[in-house]
């Protein structure tokens, strides 16, 4: 209840700045990278429908994981374990689907993800350990589990319904991986933006004490976001197994950095309280495009990694600099 002009004079300039750069940096970055590749690679097939849809298909698992991470990070937590959840889920699904059929495979894959999420969630929400350390530990733990599950062997997935549903199939002319992306983004967006749960996740990440005195069960929110993240990483595992028609312990190994970068570049705060699902989608499409373009440019694998790292660094720096105040 202070005079109105104190806010009217001081704030607008910085407000406009923040709105412009912070919220649109991902769309701008996406456009810049797209145009760059479109021009530089116009004779290398970057702009073909086939290549662009390939980018979308390859991005699907990262986008799915990014949705989970938006919830986790908005609640002020982090989930590093997704990097190995993917492989555990894919392997669990591959082993069961071959012997017991589609339903069992799905249950095993998603279930494995949810169980890892449950373990993380209980340790973070109720034992009150920091999520960074808990999920760093479970990242390592389940990387080991995925290796020992099948003695480093790759498991082929022969069930054609499964590979169609999660990989090569299509529905109404649209590939199933794109359906999964669209459905997950739409559901994620509505839950995040339009439900009480979403509001409580944001409040928890923003000020957990305020959330708690407002009657929000902070531990339950922390458990829920880690469960969501585990379940979605499990789904990502199914998508990999479906598309590659096989599961291996290496699946998802390199995705962790990509997912975190996509989420942050997309406009979600590392410290919680603010985020966007659509931004994360655009962020992960940007990462996918970057991968694809650098390969088409003929960069060696090591050069790709360096360039990708530098671009992520720049993007993250821009988006974080605008957000911290």
């Amino acid at each position, binding site marked *: *209840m*202070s*005079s*109105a002009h*104190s*806010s*009217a004079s001081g*704030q607008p300039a910085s*407000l406009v700045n923040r709105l412009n750069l912070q919220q649109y940096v991902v769309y701008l970055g996406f456009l810049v990278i797209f145009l760059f590749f479109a021009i530089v690679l116009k004779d290398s097939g970057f702009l073909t429908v086939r290549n662009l849809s390939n980018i979308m298909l390859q991005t699907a698992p990262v986008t799915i994981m990014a949705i989970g991470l938006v919830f986790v990070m908005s609640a002020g937590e982090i989930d590093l374990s997704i990097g190995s959840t993917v492989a555990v889920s894919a392997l669990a699904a591959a082993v069961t689907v071959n012997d017991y059929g589609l339903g069992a495979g799905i249950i095993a894959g998603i279930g494995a993800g949810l169980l890892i999420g449950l373990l993380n969630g209980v340790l973070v929400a109720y034992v009150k350990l920091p999520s960074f350390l808990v999920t760093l530990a479970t990242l390592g733990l389940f990387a080991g589990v995925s290796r020992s599950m099948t003695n480093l062997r790759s498991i082929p997935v022969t069930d054609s319904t499964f590979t169609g549903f999660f990989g090569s199939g299509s529905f109404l002319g649209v590939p199933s991986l794109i359906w999964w992306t669209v459905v997950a983004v739409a559901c994620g967006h*509505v839950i995040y933006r*339009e*439900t*009480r749960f*979403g*509001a*409580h996740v*944001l*409040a928890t990440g*923003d*000020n957990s*004490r*305020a*959330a*708690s*005195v*407002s*009657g*929000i069960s902070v531990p339950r929110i922390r458990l829920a976001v880690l469960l969501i993240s585990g379940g979605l990483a499990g789904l990502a595992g199914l998508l990999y197994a479906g598309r590659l028609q096989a599961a291996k312990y290496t699946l998802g190994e390199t995705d962790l950095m990509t997912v975190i970068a996509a989420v942050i570049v997309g406009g979600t*705060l590392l410290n919680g*309280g*603010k985020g966007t699902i659509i931004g994360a989608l655009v962020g992960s499409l940007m990462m996918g495009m970057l991968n694809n373009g650098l390969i088409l440019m003929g960069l060696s694998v090591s050069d790709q990694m360096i360039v990708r790292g530098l671009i992520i660094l720049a993007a993250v720096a821009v988006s974080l600099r605008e957000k911290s*105040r």
Partner: protein
Amino acid sequence: MNANVSAANEPVLKLKDIRKTFGGVTAIENFSLDVHPGEIVALVGDNGAGKSTLIKIISGVYTPTSGTITIENQTVAMSNATMARGHGIEVVYQDLALADQQTVYMNMFLGREPVNRFGLLDRRRMIAETETLVKELDVRIPSAHATIRDLSGGQRQGVAIARATHWASKLILLDEPTAALGVAETAKVEEIVESLKRRNIGVLIISHSLDQVFKLSDRICVLRRGKQIGIRETAKTDKNEIIAMITGLQQH
């Protein structure tokens, strides 16, 4: 003031022999106090006397080590803040308990967001109610859509007070509600507190300003190092007596 009227009513809040220890440290001991509907009780004491701790016990954030809390003749055991809110008790905490990156209207409805028949947030209703409330209380904020961290200290305080007055039906606890405010804003808050009286809501207010305490309160309760030194009717005491009680030194 109307101490004689409210004395006839049942107390809305009754604290009996409240004691709270943190590990080995005793923060509150042998504290007993009644607050009646429409009564304003001031809680005074030096820094660290235990005032905020007492507020947090009444609001369910801390469970007392021993003692009983009675709300409208019903002894309650509150293990979390939701239960206090269920009993019609609202709090303006010293740190305000606002979610800084959320909008004013989301903070106004934090934990109690209305939903439409599809189970989705009813933003239109939250915004409309926030705007009405903000206008009623004359809290000058840019809009219901403003983000808390873009507001001034006084505006934030206004949001926290508006939230509490909106939801309270029986009792409001105010922890230094004007500590960060200018002259005009302080007057505004005092006006709001007095209006609660007319709604027959009990008020327990913590303040370091004795002028304010004497202006607003019906009774004054003094705490010193966790001990209850005494309760005085505001009309029958003066600043010297209260200062002596707060500091433990006789004034001559």
